[in-house]
């Protein structure tokens, strides 16, 4: 049995890109159907217990991993809100030097001035504001003390949160709904404007006839088939799954770049045993950054969480792990993220993504330097001991790829935008080269590593795409609309005592 729907636009995916496109299109008067593979997660079901929430909120139970040297865990959200439901909420605009590179190397007509209205619109919709020191908590205070003593550039991060009380479990489902993920911001706006959101929809492919999109075919949880007839399709399945959907839709790829150019911002973290009580789960886990070495592709950002989380990522085993965890209240943690030059590839094997990614020598060198700096930061802050993510006794400068314990949170680039059809999967307007009516709005279009968290970039590009599809100019801030518009230059409210 086949159900059918008709729309002006069918959006596949309700994460950072899809939700934004859907809301802007629907508010612009278009008929929109959103197909989301995951479900809507009710915050009443959030338990703040890591194993349970990892299994429920993440794709593959948070066990998506790359193959290569070293293997890297790549957590991806699944459901309404996508990864914005389970990320730390950190918001950076695209760095200007990255936009200049995109113009120079990929022929993209994107610059700071042109994207500013998009960023401002997104930031208002998400209530983006800087974390206060009170809300940041003692874990951030440790890093701040170290950075100040070393004279390193640092600051409090900007986040999409309203009324945060520092529950410490952003990545396990915010129990207060303070984090303004797209599932509680843009999706309700889309629905209010008439968009239809279909969850549990397993999309088979984009239907293309005569060189242009005709709609999308999917299967629903009860086995029924769903056909959405739409002349315009926006694919927003995320960097890992978008190239697979384009491939199984039978779309030509003249560039040969589909699934390639995968950047992930590989990351790791270190722990320190402090004299003071840190209680890392009290406060915003990712609230502070140190960007002294950003020009070298090394960024430090906060990381923290409750005991089960800390026990999982603490880079120790055996009795040393047990001893360190007994001192959990005095443990501090901080993260290290590399703007990678390594590039991986995603392919479909038996219908599932196979992700190949090997760390290149330049990125290994960044980790060696970054871990040495991280150790310096913690000792400057007064750490008694520092636990680096390396085999016991290994010095950072001797680390090999297989010695590094890495995770990655920012997959980008597998349907990269390039004005030339011979070099990119999508063009400067994020339309898939060689077919009419198919567009992409997720991290896969981002043509290079950003060096900063990508959610705001993805949302700004999605905003730009939506207004392009509507044939309108993105409104300036003064005439921006949206039910949840908030000033963006204020600090986030402090934690109530």
């Amino acid at each position: 049995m086949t159900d059918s729907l008709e729309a002006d636009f069918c959006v596949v995916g309700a994460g950072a890109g899809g939700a934004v496109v859907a809301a802007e299109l629907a508010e612009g008067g278009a008929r929109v159907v959103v197909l989301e593979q995951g479900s809507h997660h009710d915050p009443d079901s959030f338990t703040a217990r890591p194993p349970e929430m990892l299994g429920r909120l993440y794709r593959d139970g948070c066990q998506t991993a790359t193959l290569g040297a070293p293997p890297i865990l790549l957590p991806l959200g699944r459901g309404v809100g996508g990864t914005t439901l389970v990320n730390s909420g950190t918001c950076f605009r695209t760095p200007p030097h990255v936009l200049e590179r995109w113009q120079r190397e990929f022929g993209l007509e994107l610059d700071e001035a042109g994207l500013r209205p998009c960023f401002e619109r997104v930031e208002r919709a998400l209530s983006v504001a800087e974390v206060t020191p009170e809300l940041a908590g003692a874990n951030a205070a440790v890093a701040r003390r170290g950075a100040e003593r070393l004279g390193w550039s640092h600051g409090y991060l900007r986040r999409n949160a309203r009324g945060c009380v520092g529950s410490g479990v952003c990545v396990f489902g915010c129990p207060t709904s303070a984090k303004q993920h797209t599932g509680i911001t843009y999706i309700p706006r889309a629905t209010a404007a008439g968009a239809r959101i279909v969850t549990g929809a397993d999309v088979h492919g984009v239907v293309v006839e005569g060189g242009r999109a005709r709609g999308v075919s999917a299967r629903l949880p009860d086995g029924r088939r769903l056909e959405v007839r739409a002349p315009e399709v926006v694919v927003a399945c995320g960097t890992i799954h978008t190239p697979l959907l384009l491939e199984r839709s039978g779309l030509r790829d003249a560039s040969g770049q589909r699934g390639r150019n995968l950047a992930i911002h590989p990351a790791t973290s270190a722990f320190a045993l402090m004299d003071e009580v840190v209680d890392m789960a009290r406060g915003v886990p990712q609230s502070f950054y140190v960007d002294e070495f950003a020009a070298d592709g090394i960024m430090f950002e906060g990381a923290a969480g409750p005991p089960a989380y800390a026990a999982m990522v603490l880079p120790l085993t055996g009795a040393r792990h047990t001893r360190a965890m007994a001192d959990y209240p005095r443990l501090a943690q901080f993260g290290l993220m590399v703007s990678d030059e390594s590039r991986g590839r995603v392919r479909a094997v038996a219908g599932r993504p196979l992700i190949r990614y090997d760390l290149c020598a330049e990125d290994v060198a960044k980790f060696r330097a970054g871990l040495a700096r991280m150790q310096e930061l913690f000792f400057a802050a007064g750490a008694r001991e520092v636990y680096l993510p390396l085999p016991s006794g290994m010095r950072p400068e001797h680390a090999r790829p297989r010695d590094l314990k890495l995770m990655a949170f920012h997959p980008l680039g597998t349907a990269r935008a390039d004005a030339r059809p011979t070099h990119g999967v999508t063009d400067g307007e994020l339309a898939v080269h060689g077919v009419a009516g198919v567009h992409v709005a997720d991290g896969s279009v981002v043509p290079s590593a950003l060096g900063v968290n990508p959610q705001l970039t993805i949302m700004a590009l999605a905003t730009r795409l939506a207004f392009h599809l509507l044939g309108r100019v993105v409104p300036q801030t003064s005439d921006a609309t949206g039910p949840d518009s908030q000033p963006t230059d204020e600090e986030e409210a402090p934690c109530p005592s």
Partner: protein
Amino acid sequence: MTRALDSFLAAAPWPQRAGLRLLLALARRPRGAALLARAPLAEQAAWSTLALGRYDDPAIGRALGWDAGAVVDRGRALRRAEGRP
């Protein structure tokens, strides 16, 4: 194995699930643990997974100053009081 850890493993794709179950089985036996000690990444994966389950125990969490139930209750109360989604 706790129910939460079991559901965490069950959510994984079969290759990872099978691999982790094998690593956990090895880690629980002295000879298996000795074998794992020769492969640091595998040993870390096994230890991390076991630790995730062990420290999820509410009693252990509370002893370390973390009360998941209280965090969730406060969140729900705030959402209801302020009409958040």
